[in-house]
């Protein structure tokens, strides 16, 4: 069956360290993968998109990798700050023009000062 799995446990790290979040999927062939940030009481906010033919994407302190052989994406936040504390969602994008996304359950990150 199709499945998307993110770290189910909350991730607690110290300020300044690198946070690494995992997104694994089975029985999907996504054309691209997106990462969103969601704060309590708010809708998700887009962070990064990586396509199936890309290995790595960076934006400021954020880095995403995409391994279609392992069926895994890793999301890194370097030099983490307490303001990075939030839930991070990975979403698989199907091919074609519909833009349909299938979301993982999210991982909650807590950065302690």
């Amino acid at each position, binding site marked *: 069956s199709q499945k*998307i799995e993110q770290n189910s446990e909350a991730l607690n790290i110290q300020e300044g360290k690198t946070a690494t979040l995992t997104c694994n999927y089975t029985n999907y062939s996504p054309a*691209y993968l*997106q990462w969103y940030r969601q704060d309590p*009481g*708010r*809708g*998700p*906010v*887009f962070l990064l*998109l990586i396509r199936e033919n890309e290995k790595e994407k960076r934006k400021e302190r954020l880095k995403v990798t995409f391994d279609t052989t392992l069926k895994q994406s890793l999301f890194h936040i370097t030099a983490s700050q307490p303001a990075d504390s939030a839930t991070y*969602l990975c*979403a698989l*994008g199907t091919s074609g*023009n*519909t*833009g*349909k*996304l*299938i*979301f*993982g*359950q*999210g991982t909650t990150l807590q950065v302690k000062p």
Partner: protein
Amino acid sequence: EAGVAQSPRYKIIEKRQSVAFWCNPISGHATLYWYQQILGQGPKLLIQFQNNGVVDDSQLPKDRFSAERLKGVDSTLKIQPAKLEDSAVYLCASKLPSGSEQYFGPGTRLTVT
């Protein structure tokens, strides 16, 4: 640029009652999505519109849920009659036809008692 607007922000109803949610997408965004997000889970797509036509409603419980997007702008999602398991946040998102990034509204938190 104004974001995606949703109302109401909160709604409490008793089971078997009906409820409606409203969404106003970002101007120019032809694609509109309604998601259901149960606590601790990622958003789950209910229905997708392209202008005023339905692209995907495969996960919409059509015996109780309905949605429309008259004139290809605002959209309304209705539940009738509501069940306890419908308690969730209902998120509206929109995107440009050429883009992949989805812009989410703040959501409507529904509690069914």
